């Protein structure tokens, strides 16, 4: 997003910007617009979840019960913590504490990977039971259409979220490398700030997915 990402620690102002503050503002604001757009990508799925939950309330509740509560809950804690560490990384970079920044980012990356590992474990458990999306669904204990749709949506929403997670890991990894090489410093922390914003969005979506897919309400 930072169109004129500086190649050295001395920030370069693009010709179109009046000054550095404008450029920083543009990058920051552009990221927010992008995040808003990203959120709307999930909107359709939220809408479908609403509709099918209304239509198949009992089956949804039963299917929610089937998901591994401990995995979902562990993952929500992991992501909240990683949100904190990435915020802490931004905070530290602004105060020129490079080591703390790097450590915070490293913990964030580990958290992200851990999240994906748990997610993978859960997918594996589902696959063994025959809980596949769509036509391939073959779970005998919940043969109803509602459960099938629930799991299709589950795969779609958590899958899309996991893709964003992978994207977030790539961005944070890239920023970590920049910080480590001294390319992103307190003089122009924008790449890290933007990466962190993205990470927080991914976290926020999971905060909503958690009650939708793991907390039973029957």
């Amino acid at each position: 997003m930072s169109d004129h990402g500086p190649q050295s620690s001395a920030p370069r102002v693009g010709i179109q910007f009046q000054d550095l503050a404008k450029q920083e503002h543009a990058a920051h604001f552009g990221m927010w617009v992008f995040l808003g757009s990203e959120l709307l990508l999930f909107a359709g799925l939220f809408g479908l979840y609403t509709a099918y939950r209304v239509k198949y309330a009992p089956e949804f509740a039963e299917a929610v019960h089937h998901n591994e509560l401990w995995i979902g809950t562990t993952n929500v804690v992991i992501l909240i913590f990683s949100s904190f560490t990435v915020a802490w990384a931004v905070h530290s970079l602004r105060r020129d504490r490079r080591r703390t920044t790097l450590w915070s980012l490293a913990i964030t990356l580990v958290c992200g990977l851990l999240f994906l590992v748990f997610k993978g474990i859960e997918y594996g458990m589902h696959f063994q039971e025959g809980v596949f999306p769509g036509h391939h669904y073959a779970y005998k204990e919940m043969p109803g259409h509602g459960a099938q749709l629930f799991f299709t949506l589950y795969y779609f929403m958590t899958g899309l979220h996991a893709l964003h997670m992978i994207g977030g890991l790539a961005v944070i990894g890239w920023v970590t490398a920049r910080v480590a090489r001294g390319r992103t410093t307190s003089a122009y922390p924008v790449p890290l700030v933007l990466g962190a914003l993205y990470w927080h969005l991914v976290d926020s979506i999971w905060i909503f997915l958690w009650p939708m897919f793991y907390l039973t309400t029957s």
Partner: protein
Amino acid sequence: MDKTEPQVMAEREHPGSGAKYVVALIALLCLTALTFGLHYVTVGELGMAVALTIAAVKVAIVALVFMELREAMVATRTVAAVAVAFVVLLCLGVFADVGFR
């Protein structure tokens, strides 16, 4: 509308204390625990409503503190509010159909 750019600069040059991040983290974990506890107590649609309300509060904390929306410009805050509003709008429009057929 964009008069507050100096604030961003100020935030960059004089970062506040990190205590707010720690407080936010503790609040988020407490709310998570609360949701977890409540889901054994509340049932049905009420339980879902409670859980989603707490989730909304948590996301608000993430946005305001971690994402620094509290210090952000009006325009940025508007972007965030509009995006959320349209997600809600889509769900409401669909609900008004499926729920009342």
